[in-house]
């Protein structure tokens, strides 16, 4: 799976992710990103679906996506592909934590979004392409808002 050289997102994705950040605050929100990968290799995210953070401990610092809910969401959104996941860092950093990288699942090649509020400027999503040992930021210039 090559890294996305162009990522576009639907116009309301930003707002949806910010809303999910706020609704879960101070806990971490989490969920799945649905969209498509075109024949030319361009990635597009159509929608974010919030899923229950079922982490057994302090949910202000960690998350786990409820597997059954993920399966239900995939079945419900079957017109799209599951292209990645998102979660929030309510305490500020937009960078992936070691825990994020270590537990991002068994296969490299998903988009991962972290929603964080930097310097109190309000929540904002940051997109990464997850590989085995690190998450490569998808540069902003490649992030085109799709009307």
């Amino acid at each position, binding site marked *: *799976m090559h890294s996305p050289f162009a990522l576009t997102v639907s116009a309301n994705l930003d707002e949806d992710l910010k809303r999910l950040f706020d609704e879960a605050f101070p806990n*971490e929100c*989490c969920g799945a990103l649905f969209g498509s*990968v075109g024949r030319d290799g361009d990635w597009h995210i159509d929608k974010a679906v919030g899923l229950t953070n079922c*982490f057994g401990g*302090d949910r202000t*610092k*960690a*998350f*786990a*996506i409820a*597997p*059954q809910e*993920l*399966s*239900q969401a*995939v*079945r419900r959104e079957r017109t799209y*592909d*599951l*292209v990645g*996941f998102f*979660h929030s*860092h*309510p*305490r500020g*950093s937009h*960078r*992936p*934590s*070691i*825990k*994020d*990288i*270590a*537990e*991002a*699942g*068994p*296969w*490299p*090649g*998903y988009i991962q979004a972290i929603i964080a509020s930097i310097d109190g400027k309000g929540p904002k999503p940051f997109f990464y392409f997850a590989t085995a*040992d690190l998450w490569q930021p998808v540069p902003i210039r490649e992030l085109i808002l799709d009307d």
Partner: protein
Amino acid sequence: MIELSIPLPLRRYCNGAERVPLEPTTVGEALTQLIDKYPDIEPLLMAPDGGLRPFVNIFVSGEDIRLRDGLETDLKSTDELEILPAIAGGSEALERDRPASDGVSLVTPDECDASSDNPVLIDVRTDEEWRLGYIPNAEHIDRGFLELRIDQVVADKTRMIVCYCQSGVRSKLAAQTLINMGYGRTVSLDGGIERWKAEGRNLEVPPRVSDEMAARYQRHLTIPEVGAEGQVKLANARVAVIGMGGLGCPVSTYLAAAGVGHIGLVDDDDIDLSNLQRQFLYTPDMVGRSKAMSAEAELARFNPTISFQPLKARLDDGNIRDIFESYDLIVDCTDNFTARYLINDEAVHQGKPVVHGAVYRFDAQVSVFGLDDGPCYRCFLPEPPPPELAPSCADAGVLGVLPGVAGLLMATEAIKVIVGFGEALSGRMLCYEAKSGSVREVKFPRDPNCSVCSERQNAFAADQSEV
């Protein structure tokens, strides 16, 4: 026909297919057919032991197969089959503004060897990498399980830990994780196992299990505390079950099921109709036949891959030494004090642990004697009680299911001792009382003046101090 949905990151292993048509009757068959068609996908889904990799979830028509029969879950032609990853993470241990592993010190293989701190080597690579060879005496914890399992491997947070991986990249991240968790003396092996090998150092290769073993004991192999190494230990273990009555039946059955490779079945009794209330290996048509021989025939049918040594004999001073010499672990399933003391004394003499169990009406008790520096049966009970206070099962009676309860706990303790996980019931007697449904634990120390084990224990202590 069933269509298996392929997750986006795995499609490149399947010629880009989003769905693959298959004709399976179970989930396991579906995966086998998928792998036959696209062999490159196997390591992404399956662990070397034949189970699913951690973080791989499979759903049949929206239901997690772990809630059904796992890989043996039946499939109907109308079912939808999905593979999805388990996803977790979080902001805990944030990298902040510096690379994750900048604070991690590196050690060379020479420094690791020369360290006077007796560091614990932790191999954080995947199962597949581990199986190709590891640094001698290293512990394996896949990086995905590091936070979950580290406290089982290293209880002392002040202990020095050396993490390593293939080339030294992942182990720096892993070491940082451990430092963040409070293991402040964690370092990373510079250059990983590649450098270790390049400098001409030895590697060890973990024991391999056959395909048949992998299939039969798959549920064991997926438990990190057992795994292939534990299963090989079970296969090589030699266990004598003394007494093939109410306790011996469940003990021998579960040890056979678990794959204990050599099981001695010792009893000189013949089957009596009154045994059938609890001794489930025997049926009415076997009444009058030897328990040891009949049990062997039943158990061999149950697990034909292991060996049994039935012996129709009553233990006595003349035969016990020879019998015990063939075994590493004794399971005392006898029903009288004479036999228990005879077993204890010879086992102490030969330095072999004894898993003990006893039942009386509604009471069951289980313990492990003579394990390492733990107490023996005589430390617990120096002399037999007077006969009037210790009636046999035949005189006092026993609830038929009680030997089953005790026997399964005994088999569990035997497996723990053989594989070496958890805390054996050494110096502790687990007491179950069926009428109230309560369990309590009685602790007892080793008796430094024990007439049987004190001499041997002193020798053991001397051996330990020389290590």
